[in-house]
């Protein structure tokens, strides 16, 4: 449904992305992993119209598309949860959820918007006492839930989640993973950025590894071990994660259980 070919992006002297390829099919969950600064968020921002790529082509539903603005991404049906969440702290939860896609523009339908907000938040098991407080009053995880709920409005075709579970509690993480599975069942494409191998193993279909702004392997989750992914992320089989695991004498699965430090 969505495919990227040869995407490149530089920030001044830093080549944040070089020659990136990525494909997402309908009903597929693609995990994108990579070290800090590997370029994952930059890739997300290109797809959501925040940055424009310097080179390469984006094909969406077998048409070459240009995504010059976030509004263009919305129109195509690409919804994004940004790592830095992008919420307006002075607006309340409902206003943030519906920002830019309010119901009844000339006479806001606050009741319908609030009802719908509660539905979405309940679906994510959000622990938010009231939706009429400014987002500034919410905890980090609550904000993250709001940001995720935001992306579900307006029937997107592709949802991009940049570290969606980083700040979430156990129950909320599970809900997000459930949600990702539901999205897949509904035929949406999901791109999930994460540092958590357990999450990758749990819901992803394929894993794309970025390393220093380049593709560094594409794996089928079914037949790849956490070790292989970690090796691709760090660029060496003898990496710091493996060394730790070896020291503990349970080589292999520790990393999967701990998740990687982010």
């Amino acid at each position: 449904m969505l495919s990227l070919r040869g995407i490149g992006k530089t920030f001044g002297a830093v080549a944040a992305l070089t020659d990136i390829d990525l494909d997402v099919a309908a009903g597929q969950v693609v995990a994108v992993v990579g070290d800090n600064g590997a370029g994952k968020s930059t890739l997300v921002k290109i797809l959501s119209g925040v940055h424009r790529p310097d080179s390469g082509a984006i094909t969406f539903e077998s048409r070459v598309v240009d995504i010059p603005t976030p509004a263009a991404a919305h129109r195509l049906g690409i919804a994004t949860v940004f790592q830095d969440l992008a919420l307006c702290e002075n607006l309340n939860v409902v206003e943030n959820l519906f920002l830019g896609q309010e119901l009844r523009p000339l006479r806001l339908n606050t009741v319908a918007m609030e009802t719908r907000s509660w539905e979405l938040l309940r679906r994510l098991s959000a622990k938010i006492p009231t939706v009429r407080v400014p987002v500034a009053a919410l905890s980090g995880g609550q904000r993250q839930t709001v940001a995720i709920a935001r992306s579900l409005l307006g029937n997107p075709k592709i949802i991009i989640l940049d570290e969606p579970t980083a700040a979430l509690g156990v129950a909320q993480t599970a809900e997000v993973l459930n949600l990702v599975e539901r999205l897949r069942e509904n035929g949406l494409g999901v791109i999930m950025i994460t540092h958590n191998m357990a999450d990758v193993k749990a819901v992803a279909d394929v894993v794309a590894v970025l390393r220093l702004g380049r593709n560094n392997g594409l794996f089928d989750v079914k037949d790849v071990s956490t070790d292989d992914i970690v090796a691709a992320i760090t660029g060496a089989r003898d990496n710091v994660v493996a060394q730790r695991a070896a020291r503990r004498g349970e080589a292999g699965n520790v990393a999967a259980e701990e998740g990687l430090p982010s």
Partner: protein
Amino acid sequence: MKTTDSPTVVTVATDLQDERLQARDGLRGAVAALLDRARSGDLGMVPVAVGLVVIWTVLQILNPVFLSSANLVNLTMESVPVGVMALGIVCVLLVGQIDLSVGSVSGLSAAVLAVLFIGQDLPVWGAILAALLVGVVVGWLYSQIFNRFGVPSFVITLAGLLGFLGMQLYVLGTKGSINLPFDSGLVNFAQLAFVPPWLSYVFVVVAAGVLFVSGFLHARERRTAGLSARSLPVLVTRSAALLVGLGLVVWYLNQTRGVGWMFVLFVALVLIMHYLLSRTKWGKAVYAVGGNTEAARRAGINVKAVYSSVFVLCSTFAAVGGVLAAARLAAANQSSGTGDVNLNAIAAAVIGGTSLFGGRGSAFGALLGMIVIQSISSGLTLLNLDSSIRFAVTGAVLLLAVIVDSVSRRSRTSHGRA
């Protein structure tokens, strides 16, 4: 936070199910919620209301004429031109920008009005339209420079302050002053047109009625949707308070000349802006851009269009203010829109609770803030203090308002209300 009532509804409203929420029932709950907000720095219009009481008390003690009906009628009329400009300032401040040139733009529009109306013998509505068009064009120009080159609005409008003053002087030509005839409808509107007392009371009743009915319908809609809503006693109290409060004000003004149509126009503009800002998609976009521009952009809001709309609106309101000021004075001259007009408009907006940091404020703030500014100005004039002291006092009040803004912002941050 709203309150629930209705013992008939057994299940808890959707938005009140979290067990950490403290129950806030009925009137007492409404008051408690209000106090809560004030404590956490979400002061809204409390400081300006308190300030107004203090200022009125002091001025009344200094000069017993101050609170006389005649003086208050005058005060309401005098406050309109700059008040309309303050309404525009509220909009630019909401997106986190500033317009320092409203005075000059109002002066230019007054000059254009006078020249076309008197010099060119255009019908008055044609001249008014042209004057307003000046505002639209100026705002459009500002927004183009702002959006294309990213020049800070403070610098653009500072240039505009001088540039349009120059244009005003040029338009007025060597005469420097053009009088508007007293028998024209425009001057009549600004000086002599008052609402007949019976009609003014009708307005009050209608206002209270509309507040009640809209509140009631909204509450019913919320309850049907399973959300909490204001209870009937709260709604009734609110409307009754408005009825009595507004009724008293109108009654007192009616002791002399009454409520001017120009003031009615101002209130109408405030209500329209309040609606636009709080009940439309555009309004939410304005607050979003002021709160977090990047988030607004990523939400798909056309940020540049929002800036454009706000600059155009502000300059247009400035032009409206200029027309009204000219009508009130029955003249446009070289000092139209100069002096403290600029600062008063900005001060009114800020005193009315609009934050200089963007993202918070309201149209009603412009009304209240303007009454404060005009009270000071009128009170000091009554005391025969000259404009040097008036300027100094207005400056001090503005500073005080900005300090309140900054402090409450800090308090909001620490109480998580941003």
